[in-house]
C-alpha cells in the first residue's frame, strides 16, 4: 500500500519537533479516513462525505498537507453548493488520491 517515492506527499511539518508525532498519527490514521470517505460515498451519504471533507479541510493543512486541505475544501464547497455530479465525482477522486499519498 505504500505509495511509490515519486507519488508520496510529504508533510511540510515533518521535521517540526512539536508536530512530528501528530503528523505520524495522522498518516497512520489516513487509511481509516479514506475507508470512511469511500463507505459514505458508496452509501450515497453525501452529508457524511461533506462532514469528513470538512474535517480534512480543517486538519490537513495543520499537519502540513496543504494540497489535501485544498482538495477537501473544494469538495466540501461543491457539496454545499450541490454542484454537478460529474464535478463532485472528479473532486472526490482527487481527494482520495491525494489522501493515499500522504507520508511523514
Amino acid at each position, binding site marked *: 500500500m505504500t505509495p511509490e517515492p515519486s507519488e508520496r506527499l510529504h508533510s511540510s511539518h515533518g521535521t517540526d519537533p*512539536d508536530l512530528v*508525532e*501528530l503528523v505520524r498519527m495522522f498518516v497512520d490514521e489516513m487509511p481509516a479516513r479514506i475507508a470512511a470517505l469511500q463507505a459514505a460515498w458508496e452509501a450515497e451519504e453525501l452529508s457524511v462525505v461533506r462532514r469528513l471533507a470538512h474535517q480534512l479541510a*480543517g486538519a*490537513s*493543512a*495543520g*499537519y502540513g498537507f*496543504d494540497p489535501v*486541505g485544498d482538495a477537501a475544501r473544494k469538495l466540501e464547497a461543491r457539496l454545499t453548493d450541490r454542484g454537478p455530479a460529474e464535478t463532485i465525482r472528479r473532486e472526490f477522486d482527487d481527494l482520495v488520491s491525494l489522501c493515499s499519498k500522504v507520508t511523514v
Partner: protein
Amino acid sequence: MVHDIARPVDGTPLVLLIDDCPDVHRLMRARLRHEELELASCMGGRQGLDEAIRRQPALVLLDLDMPDLDGFEVLRALKSHERTMDIPVIILSGVQSSQDKVTAFDLGAVDYITKPFNLTELRVRVRSSLKMHHLVQMLAQRAQIDGLTGLWNRAYFDKRWSDAVAAFERHGRPLSLAMIDLDHFKAINDTYGHPAGDSVLQGLARLLQREPRQEDVACRYGGEEFTLIMPETTPEEARHVCERIRTTLHAITWPRHPERAVTCSVGLAGAATPIELSAAEWLEAADRALYLAKQSGRNCIHTAELSPRLAQAG
C-alpha cells in the same frame, strides 16, 4: 459576579477550545504546548457552552461550523450569559468569508483566526487576548478596592454582604458582621492634619487585614467607618476578634502624634442559628449597635440582640 472578580487574577489562564474536529484539538495542544496556559477541550457547541459557563475560562477558541450548535449560536449565548459575557472569544474558521468575520465581530468576538493556523499568528493572538482579559479583570478588581487603605470598598461590601447573608440562609452556618468606627476621627484630622488622619485609616486597615482569619472580609464602608464580614463565626467568637482589634489599635504609638492614642468603637451583629433578617436589616442592627457603643463612652464593643427565627423558636 463578585466572587468571579475576587478570584485571583494571577495563575495559569484556562483556555477553552470548542471544535468538533479532533485533529484541531491535537494540533492546538501541540501548537500551544509551550504557552503558559491550560487548554480544555470540548467537541461540540452545546457541551462547550455548558463548560464555559461552569469553568469561566480566560479565553474561548470557537469553531464556527459545528453540527449540533453552530459557532454563531454559541457566541450569541456566551455573550448573553452573565457568567460568560466578559470572556474574550476568538473565532476559528476555515471559512474565509468576510461576512462571517463581520457577523462574528458584531456578536462580540475579539478576534478571528483562519484555519489552517499559522503558528506564530496563533500564539500572538492567543497571548494578546489573554493579556487583555487579564488587564480588564485587574481593572474590575481595582474598581472595588479602596485607594487609600487597599481594603474592599463600599460597592464590593454591598454585594459580598448580600452573598454572605444568602449563604447563611442556605446553609444555616454562623455569620457575624462588625461595624468599626474610629473615635473622634475629625479631631485627629483637625489637630494633626489630614496626612495624620490618613495614617490612622491605613493603620486600622492593616489591623483589619492582619487580625481576622483568611475567610473574613474587611471593607472600608466610608469615611472612618469599616466593616468586617465574618463567615462561620458566632457572635461570641466575633467579639474576641473585635476585642483584639480594639485593644491592638489602642496600644499603637503613632509616629505623627505619639502623645495621642487612637481608639475605635464596634457594633456587632451576629447569629449562630437561623434568624429572620434581610441583609439590610442585619446591617442596620450592626449600625445601631455601633451607635450604642458610641453612646456608652466609645472604645468599646456593643453586640446587637438578634431574635431567632420564629419558626425555629417553638
